[in-house]
């Protein structure tokens, strides 16, 4: 049996070209399967840890999932804003402990710009109730000051003192720039593993200021207000994108939610982050399961290819099997030889798949984090992934029994003289 293993390995090496192709097919299919599983779990982790301690997210009436996506995860755009008056009403509600305004829409070199106030640094929590902390510098105080997330600082090489120009609208290339009103970076936040890392934070007043001489999403032609004069204008915000709300008593959450949703002056929506996330997983879950089913099928195709290649090679190897029989191999040794070969390729393919995936994660991970805010954690293999790999190897073993059994039958009927 030990020698069957050696023989299987050397025999496989002898047919390394055809088996190598099969090996690559299995490795690719395994890296696809595990990769999808990895993106899935990491996306959920990233989302789940992005907001904590916030009881309600309030914005213009849309779907709760959409509100969460743009207000917390900076994905997509708001279809409507909420009025500043509505925010003030909300903030003064007797049950509301704190309310943080969020104003989105501008960007800096592809990173979203968030207009907010000092309350953001006070009340925003992520992960397990962790507060944002400054790695360097301080919070913004003056009008044209910005605090940047760790990812922004690292990607763009910014530190405290850097001068940055905001662009109108999202996206990496934007023709309309607020070039006349540059900002100074005064603080860099510590890495949180949340969308905050990719965000440039400025005050709500600054957002108003850079849009003073704008109308309908474009600068007003022939009209420009220099930065030094903007403080003479009323910079109180007129509208914001959304608000994060913390309650004095969490048990009031449904009552407050109902009141917000039925607010008569403006159509608003209050979403419970946890419920909205569950809704999101409900929607995404269908796609996830479909992707997993497809990648599992790809693995099955790879293993079917393996069985086909081994079976096809069996015809040429009848002589070899007869020699082994003649020197004393039992039919069960022949069975083991062929089954081990398939198992061997499957295990090797699974391991190579993990290596490929690690390389792909290292190469494409930063891009995924930059574009989609999903941080793919590099790791060797997790328990869940081991279960998937175990299933792959199990199915590979089961599939390898087919050529094993076929060779067993052949060696019984051929004996020492293959009739070829």
């Amino acid at each position: 049996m030990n020698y069957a293993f050696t023989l299987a390995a050397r025999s496989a090496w002898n047919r390394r070209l055809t088996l190598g192709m099969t090996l690559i097919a299995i490795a690719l299919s395994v890296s696809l399967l595990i990769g999808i599983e990895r993106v899935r779990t990491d996306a959920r982790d990233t989302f789940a840890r992005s907001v904590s301690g916030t009881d309600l997210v309030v914005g213009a009436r849309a779907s709760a999932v959409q509100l969460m996506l743009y207000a917390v995860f900076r994905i997509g755009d708001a279809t409507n804003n909420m009025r500043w008056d509505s925010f003030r009403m909300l903030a003064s509600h007797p049950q509301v402990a704190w309310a943080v305004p969020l104003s989105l829409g501008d960007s800096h070199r592809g990173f979203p710009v968030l207009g907010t106030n000092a309350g953001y640094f006070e009340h925003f929590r992520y992960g397990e109730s962790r507060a944002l902390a400054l790695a360097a510098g301080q919070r913004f105080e003056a009008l044209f000051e910005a605090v940047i997330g760790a990812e922004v600082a690292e990607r763009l090489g910014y530190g405290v003192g850097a001068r940055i120009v905001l662009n109108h609208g999202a996206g990496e290339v934007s023709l309309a720039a607020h070039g006349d009103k540059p900002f100074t970076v005064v603080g860099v936040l510590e890495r949180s593993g949340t969308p905050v890392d990719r965000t440039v934070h400025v005050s709500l007043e600054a957002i108003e200021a850079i849009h003073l001489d704008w109308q309908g999403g474009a600068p007003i032609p022939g009209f420009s207000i220099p930065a030094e004069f903007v403080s003479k204008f009323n910079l109180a915000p007129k509208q914001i994108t959304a608000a994060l709300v913390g309650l004095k008593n969490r048990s009031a959450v449904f009552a407050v939610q109902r009141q917000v949703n039925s607010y008569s002056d403006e159509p608003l929506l209050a979403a419970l982050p946890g419920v909205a996330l569950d809704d999101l997983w409900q929607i995404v879950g269908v796609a996830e399961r479909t992707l997993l089913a497809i990648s599992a099928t790809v693995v099955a195709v790879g293993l079917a290819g393996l069985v086909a290649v081994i079976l096809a090679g069996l015809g040429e190897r009848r002589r070899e099997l007869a020699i082994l029989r003649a020197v004393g191999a039992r039919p069960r040794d022949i069975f083991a030889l062929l089954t081990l070969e398939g198992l061997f390729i499957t295990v090797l393919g699974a391991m190579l798949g993990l290596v490929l995936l690690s390389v792909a994660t290292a190469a494409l991970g930063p891009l995924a984090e930059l574009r989609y805010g999903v941080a793919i954690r590099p790791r060797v293999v997790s328990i869940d992934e081991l279960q998937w790999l175990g299933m792959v190897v199990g199915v590979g073993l089961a599939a390898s029994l087919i050529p094993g059994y076929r060779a067993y039958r052949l060696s019984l009927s051929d004996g020492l003289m293959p009739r070829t």
Partner: protein
Amino acid sequence: MGDTPVIRIRDLLFRWRGAETACLDIPAFEVQRAEHLFLHGPSGSGKSTLLGLLGGVLLPERGELGLLGTKLTSMAAPARDRFRADHVGFIFQQFNLIPYLGVIDNVLLPVRFSSRRRERIAARGATPFDEACRLLDRLGMSGDLRHREAVRLSVGQQQRVAAARALIGGPEIIIADEPTSAMDAGLQLVFVDLLLKEAAAAGATVIFVSHDHRLAAGFPRQLALADINRAIAVAEAA
């Protein structure tokens, strides 16, 4: 075990599955210890079937088939495989070698499957590797020929490797099935000579199957399969 025949067959009948008539019908056949037997017969006379029976991969429909005093017919299949590994060395017509193993590893194959062959080598105070080299030397396969890939050898060289493999670990019976038919005429006699000399040195019984009578000269006993197989006689009479 001194006077027990190495091979003893009585009233053996073998029929291929689905066949109407018997392929082998051997009333009596014996081969003695250290005997060198030349067995000839046209193709289709049941030579290969007889070898399959002697190797224990086929079982007769009825009759007695004994090797070294052991009845193969009363053994289970794995025991017959083990018996073959321990006591019988085979050399086939051609393509005797495993292509992905080197010369030495090919020679060592039976030792991997038979603990008895390992023990016999150890009893001589040698290692299997030494023994493989010694046999290859004796068969004229010395030097770097040993380190070549099996598939890069000429047919004659391959058959010498096969002979060393059959002989290693001193099995009592060597069965050679037309081992020279793919060789050049000049080399055939040399090969038979070497094989018989080494078998004699090991005290092994040789059953050499061939239809080429020119090779029969070195064998003390020569036999046509038709002489012992009644099935052929019946078929020819009919």
